[in-house]
């Protein structure tokens, strides 16, 4: 009895001391997350001359001149404008996301619902290739794209999404946890065809899992710099957003900081808005990685 009360006394003391420290450290870390973006948005509204004087903490009035300057810079340097880059990214990212999530569900469904020879081997194989990075086979990918005429085409970025082992893995996990094969078997319309059964009966049930995976597929494709910058290298007209950002990097003493920060800010803003709207689902989706093994 006495030891327990002593423990509680100690605990109380400990909490009074520890809680403020923990809160303080968490707040510092949050500020560290936000600070670079705060400076980014502030600098986007300031003139280059003002930015160069030091750390500016209040918004300026140069947003419009930075914007016109940024557009003119694209014309001068013969690169795509930021709007065109955003459009280019969008028409790669949207079909990539759709194909990736649809076919990952398709594949996971095949493994979960059907019992066939080689099923375990196929699953072990998909699990194993999750670990192979795509970066190491880029020389061969260039070759494949040249032979098939996909080099310089957006399809070279979109089509490979049909085979995304990680997304298959998560969709299979999702199906195991919250999808009953019996429903499909009971609802199976004889002679309606298995693919139609998948599309009309299984897909609606898989929607929540697909939505989470879609967010991550979208982000991964949108942020990808490596593959587009190699496969679209000959076609600067199709440059995606990260390629546009790469073109913004400059060590030139004459560079205009206001324009650079505005370009960066415009690339960050849509993702940030989408993130804060969807954050609940995103954090829950990241948690899935923790219940893996």
């Amino acid at each position: 009895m006495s030891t327990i009360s002593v423990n509680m006394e100690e605990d109380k003391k400990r909490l009074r001391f520890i809680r403020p420290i923990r809160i303080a450290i968490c707040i510092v870390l949050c500020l560290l997350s936000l600070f670079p973006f705060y400076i980014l948005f502030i600098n986007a509204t300031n003139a280059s001359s003002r930015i160069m004087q030091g750390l500016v903490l209040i918004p300026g009035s140069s947003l419009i001149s930075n914007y016109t300057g940024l557009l003119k810079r694209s014309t001068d340097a013969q690169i795509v404008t930021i709007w065109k880059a955003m459009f280019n990214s969008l028409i790669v990212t949207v079909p990539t996301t759709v194909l990736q999530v649809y076919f990952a569900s398709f594949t996971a469904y095949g493994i979960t619902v059907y019992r066939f020879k080689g099923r375990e081997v196929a699953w072990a194989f998909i699990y194993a290739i999750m670990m192979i990075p795509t970066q190491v086979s880029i020389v061969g990918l260039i070759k494949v794209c040249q032979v098939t005429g996909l080099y310089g085409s957006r399809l070279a970025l979109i089509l490979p999404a049909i085979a995304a082992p990680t997304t298959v893995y998560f969709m299979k996990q999702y199906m195991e946890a919250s999808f009953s094969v019996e429903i499909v078997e009971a609802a199976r319309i004889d002679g309606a065809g298995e693919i139609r059964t998948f599309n009309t009966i299984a897909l609606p049930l898989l929607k929540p899992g697909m939505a989470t995976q879609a967010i991550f597929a979208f982000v991964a494709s949108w942020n990808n710099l490596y593959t587009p910058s190699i496969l679209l290298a000959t076609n600067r007209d199709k440059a995606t957003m990260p390629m546009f950002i790469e073109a913004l990097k400059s060590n030139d003493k004459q560079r205009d900081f206001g324009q650079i920060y505005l370009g960066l800010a415009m690339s960050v803003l849509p993702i940030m808005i989408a993130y804060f709207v969807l954050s609940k689902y995103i954090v829950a989706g990241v948690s899935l990685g923790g219940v893996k093994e």
Partner: protein
Amino acid sequence: MNNKKKTVEYGKYGYLFLAPFFIVFLIFQFYPLLYTFYSSFFYKEATGRGNATVVFGLGNYTNYVFGDKANGEIFSAIAITIILWLLNFIPQILMSLLLAAWFTDLQCKLRGEGAYKVIMYMPNIITAATIAVLFFNLFDVHGGVTYLLKVLHIVTEDQAKNLLTQGWFSLGLIAFIQFWMWYGNTMIVLIAGIMGISPSLYEAAMVDGASPRQQFFYITLPLLKPILQFTLVTSAIGGLQMYDIPQLFNLGKPLVEFHGKKVLSTQTVVMLIKQFAAETTAKDHGRAAAYSVILFFITLAVSMVFYVATSEKKPKKESK
């Protein structure tokens, strides 16, 4: 019985459902991998006046990888990639563990846990290319952060003029950016792992008078081991492929000394591969392929260690 009959009947459709994945995998991942291996045996030998002949053999390996022709650039790039990864992963895992322990501490609930998680994770979702250019400009001679460091007397006026041309500084900064982008992610994964540990274990420990510290070291850590291993390996594999941030960070040409030679402190293996695979001034697919093969085997070795480490635990588990 009826059920079993049905699955047998429909079984063959499984192949139909797996076909798209495996066809696309063969064309866009498996064949490219084989072709990369094959390409690594084509050695482009300069014959003077800008001409070159291609020789089939081990030329790329004997000259560039294990020879002196490229100053061992692949090994310095491997060393730099590993240093970059270690410098970001060690603080990242420690910080994530600490925060995960705090956020799951039932005795000391922190209000607004959800908001902290959302904000700490945020940098992870922003385009890495944007973050690299942003930090490059913030730490530039005229950058806001450089100004702040100067005012706070953390760096001298002289140092502030060329922070980004200094090898170790650039390397440390890239590692910091990686840490800053990833600790939130790792933290959320670890929190989910800790939440999966049965609360009755903690209750029993508390009845026995175990301190929070003891609970962490004797319950949380051992039971978190599989997830920690998984985090370690996915991070190591990802870290070996590091590209975006160092690629956009090399404008200052920061150098470090490696085996008595000055090398670019931001040159990772994948950057080297990209240089010879795609940049028109340096195109040499055989050389890029040989470097890719080396990276492939390093990555493979890392995953093998993981499989060995986890498979010996598997039989003990009841499910999966």
